[in-house]
């Protein structure tokens, strides 16, 4: 009886994407080979790597951080109403994404959502809150008034919170729908996995630096 053995195509897709190539039959054959002890050397290493989830500690850390962002309970104006709706309304429930624990003390919070217009009297207060937060921390600028001056281009408003804070995600809208804010938070989560723990530092090329308050 002639048993035909097919040479499997080399899995050139790189770590983390092994299931996609070749389809089910290929994977079955490779599993068979592993059980028979026929995978050697490089093939064996790749096989194991593809199937083990946590390959690096950074990625593990990023995954944990993104799924448990603790927002600072901070709301300024109308956007705060939509933020509370996004967090507290049963329809759009932020707890699904792990961000339900709202900490009111900046020492215990990860994320600062600037929701609302920032007046010149409030700006130093926000800066102080931001300084009191511990690394890693992220900032979402929610709404038009926090991202730019919004519609209030006048003497009393700081035109955009990025004048004194580094911002990771801008969510436009006046006010943005709760779904838009959640999209912003999910984008922040994606950003966290891409640049674990660094966030804005890469954008402003400030890696390896430390903030001196």
């Amino acid at each position: 009886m002639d048993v035909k053995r097919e040479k499997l195509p080399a899995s050139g897709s790189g770590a983390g994407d092994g299931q996609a190539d070749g389809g089910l039959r290929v994977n079955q054959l490779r599993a068979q080979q592993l059980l028979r002890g026929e995978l050697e050397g490089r093939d064996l290493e790749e096989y194991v790597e593809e199937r083990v989830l946590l390959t690096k500690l950074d990625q593990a850390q990023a995954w944990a951080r993104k799924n448990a962002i603790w927002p600072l309970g901070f709301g300024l104006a109308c956007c705060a109403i939509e933020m509370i709706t996004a967090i507290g309304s049963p329809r759009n429930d932020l707890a699904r994404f792990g961000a339900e624990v709202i900490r009111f003390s900046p020492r215990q919070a990860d994320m600062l959502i600037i929701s609302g217009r920032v007046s010149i009297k409030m700006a130093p207060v926000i800066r102080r809150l931001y300084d009191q937060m511990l690394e890693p921390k992220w900032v979402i600028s929610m709404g038009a008034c926090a991202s730019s001056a919004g519609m209030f281009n006048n003497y009393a408003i700081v035109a955009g919170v990025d004048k004194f804070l580094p911002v990771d995600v801008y969510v436009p809208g006046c006010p943005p729908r709760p779904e838009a804010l959640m999209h912003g938070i999910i984008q922040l989560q994606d950003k966290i996995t891409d640049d674990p723990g660094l966030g804005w530092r890469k954008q402003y090329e400030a890696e390896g630096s430390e903030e001196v308050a």
Partner: protein
Amino acid sequence: MTDALAAHEADVDAELLTINLGPHHPATHGVLRLLCTLEAEVVRDIKPIIGYVHTGIEKSCEDQQYWKAITFVERMDYLAYYFNSHAFVMAVERLLGEEVPRRAEYLRVIHLELNRIASHLFWIATAALDIGAVTMLWWGCRDRDRVLDLFEMSSGQRIHTRYFQVGGVMEDIPPGFDAKCREFIEEMPTRLDQYEALLDQNEIWLRRTKGTGIVPEERLLELGVTGPLLRASGNPWDLRKAMPYSVYEDFDFGIPVGTVGDNYDRYRVRMAEMRESLKIVEQALEGLPEGPYITPNRKVALPPRHELATSMESLIHHFKLVTEGFRVPPGEAYVPVESPRGELGCFVLADGSAKPARVHMRDPSFVNLQALADMGRGCLIADFISSIAMLDPILGGVDR
């Protein structure tokens, strides 16, 4: 030695601690800063410091045309946006001498009362959260989302909808609005019953709110307080009944009035107001007349789009209104309306050009905040927090 010790002890008893309930605080309903002078846990004095969300809206309005200023004015008291725009629009209409069609008035009333319900729902959600009943946050936001769905149906936006225009409303309500609104009106009383079942007889709620934050009615009148705070202390002053404006005379509704004026009465008054608003919305839906939804005066209101293709005059009017805007003859007008927090007045000074020369909102939260000091003196700090919650300040209106 004993003298020194006695003196020291007397000193310790009289020791007052001034703490800062800073602009960032979970229980201050916005960025309100309070300097509390405490003796042990009893509040001796309160000084509110405001201005942390001062946006210069009033000055910005001087630079905008009248119909653009509607969007600015809406963002002052950001939970009662229809009321802000209603007061402003009524002031401009009074200066122009413009009549509003009846259908538009009815539509306005429907949206105003729905906004009152939404504002009170958000109030109870956050007030109960402050006092500790976290379930109300979920329930209040859930029902408020249903009201915002109705707003989205009629104007496309949930919040700050610029639905009210000078001379009427922006657009007629779409076909499904009536059915959805009636659905909401039918379900809401049972929901309100649920909320009251949770809180009305709740031991903790009663202990926190009954007997706390009492200010005598005369003092409230001296301080200029209006709205549910005044009604809770027994004075049935409601602008919708006392000095009716718009079409409120056509509707049959009651004014809930409290007896003692403590936080519990304020809570009961607002819950009852929600029921009365539901009645008004139902009557308005029943009696909604046919007709135009905005004044036919083309010098003030934009012509309908289909006319732009056929009529040259409409095109000219449209062009004039969009580029320069309508001009208002010189004059001053102060128009008060009854917002969920009290008397919301809008003062417009017109100087004959297309931009207002001065827009000022007499915001109820700004005035009601002066009652905080009276509410706080002599009570425990925890009761003071529930007083702030029941006062329902909206800092956007306070700071403008």
